[in-house]
């Protein structure tokens, strides 16, 4: 069911897991922070206008959604780079 990992690979594996954890946490925290910031300030931001929309409404209806999508694609790309670094550092079987 599982493969044995040589002791020398542990440092690379742990580094990969730490970087993965940081990336996941950063992506989700950034998105949650953006949503909560937009909600808390929505009523006051509504007195400003952006692209014909009240700004508070615009952020929750479009701005944050666009930010979530961009974050999602950025996460996929960065995680692929992290995975590639791990596979390059591992010795070929």
């Amino acid at each position, binding site marked *: 069911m599982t493969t044995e990992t040589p002791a020398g690979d542990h440092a690379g594996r742990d580094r990969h897991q730490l970087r993965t954890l940081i990336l996941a946490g950063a992506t989700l925290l950034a998105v949650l922070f953006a949503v909560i910031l937009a909600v808390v300030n929505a009523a006051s931001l*509504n007195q400003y206008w952006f692209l*014909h929309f009240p700004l508070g409404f615009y952020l929750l209806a479009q701005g944050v959604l666009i930010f979530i999508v961009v974050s999602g694609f950025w996460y996929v790309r960065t995680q692929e780079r992290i995975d590639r670094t791990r596979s390059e550092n591992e010795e070929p079987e």
Partner: protein
Amino acid sequence: MNSLSRLRAPHPHLGAYYGIVTSAFVSLIVLLAMFEQLGWREVVIAQFMIVTPLLLYIVIAVGSRTRNTEDFFTSGRRVPAVFNGFVLAATAVGGVGFLAYTGAVFFLGFDALAIGLGLTCGILAGAVLFVPYLRKAGAYTLPGFLGQRFRSRRLRIAASVMQIPPMALLLAAEIKIAALIASLFLPLTFSLAVFLVAALVAAIGMLGGMRALTWAGSAQFIVGAVGLAVPLVTVSVLLTSLPTPQFTYGELIPSLQNAEITAGLSPVQPEEVETDLPPTAPQKVLKPFFQPFGIFGEFDFVVLFLCLMLGTAALPSLLVRSGVTRSVVEQRRSTAWALLLVALFALTAPAMAVFVKLLLFQDIGLAPAATASLPDWLTGLSGRQLLQASDANGDGGIGAAEILFTRDGIALTLPTLAGLPYVLTVLMAASGMAVALAAAGSHLFTLAGSMAEDVYRVLDRGAAEHPRLAAAWGAIAGSAIAAALFLIVADIDPLRAALTALAFAAATFFPVLMLAIWWPRGSEWGAFASMCTGFSVIFLGAMFGPDTGIYLAIVGLIGVIAGLVAGITASLYGIKPPAAATAYWQEMRNPEGEAIYDRAKARAAASAANASTGGQ
């Protein structure tokens, strides 16, 4: 990439096939539009527009039929990322999102944005926290993954049982939406429509399992997207002169605000309203569209958003699709595509609601106060039971305040209100039905596949390939019949059912998945404690608490926190996980190589072959 992965090349002509499907559907729309101008009756146009795509789904399912278990449960692990993204998006949005969410935005305006945000953010959270690791594990079902991760058959069966309430609720909600559309536009009673929809969904699932659901689901997504885009873009061009409704409806805000003032809508406060989520029964519009936090306060908005986000992230019918692509990288990319498509829908729904509201209130406001000179659409939409109008104040006319709107029919009214040909109304209906069928198929397969794989196969460990499939067929047929019978006797609200299901998914599965994937110290007893605590909290809350959306969301979040605390405590103070469980965790975190389940299966097959050779 090793030899197993190389064998799993996707079909080289998939793009061409679905290009043909799209062209054929667009041609059908054009043909029916021409026939409408030539005088075809509305009922005939509706039958062609709704029934022809249904035949297409059946043909695709027949073409995708299989008796191979890997094809049946994981679509052969060779679905391209974009196509998996199509089906994930259709399952996440579903008929409930298409009709009920759009209706909720119409009634609640600004406050309903929490639903779309929660759904979109949930897809991102699932993609970041769970999906790549489930792909590496390669289990056929979510309970199967938990059973393998924690080395526990009891846990696998318990997870399968706890998966029933959310999946059954979502299945019933989606079948109801599809049956509602069928009974509105085809000469069918609601009960007959429920049975026909359930039979269609079950037939697709039984013919080819995940494989048929993937390829029929991709066609359903295309029909849904085209059917939503064509009427909406047409209305956008008529109202704003630009074909980008998502970004141009802001120009209509002053007109909408004037129309709302004329209709007598004034700002409301949360304590003034009896119910937070709009019910299915026809009702008046409660608040101005752009008033922030009139029904949900800021705290309620965040709570609803978080509950929907965690529920979507841990929804078994989305996570079960984590094993269908060729690799971890492909799986991650497919969730990114799904995220883009769901976000696009969440951007579109408010535009649709603004168009409907503006057209309704402007026409009514401009009409003289005499019933005889009211707009033509009032009679047409009343006849289809999409709204109710009566002279409640006895002034001899009908004002905007005297019209009651049906929440789940709001999206379907748009083409009629804009004076577009009838073919676009039935196109919108076919589109809503397509995504409802795609979502119902996924929920049904998740429910029934788990019963076959996690209950029958665990109890009968020697089950060979054919009995496993027979068990899945029986479970699919049984679940579809049970859902149809439930809908005949119970009048459920699809939006409320979906919220309850997502609260169940959040409280029951989010904490245990966090323990399973992000904490090597998580143990079998920790997983048990986490799932049972979360499930008990949401079950008791849903059974005995008040019937409001915010209350359900709060209970769901309490279930998540209680589940996490119980799981961590039981893992820390209970029996330590065995070395095999920790090694499984380490292997699951390595994105390279074949799925753990497939490697174990290949090793078991090789051992069996060696044993038989040695025996001879």
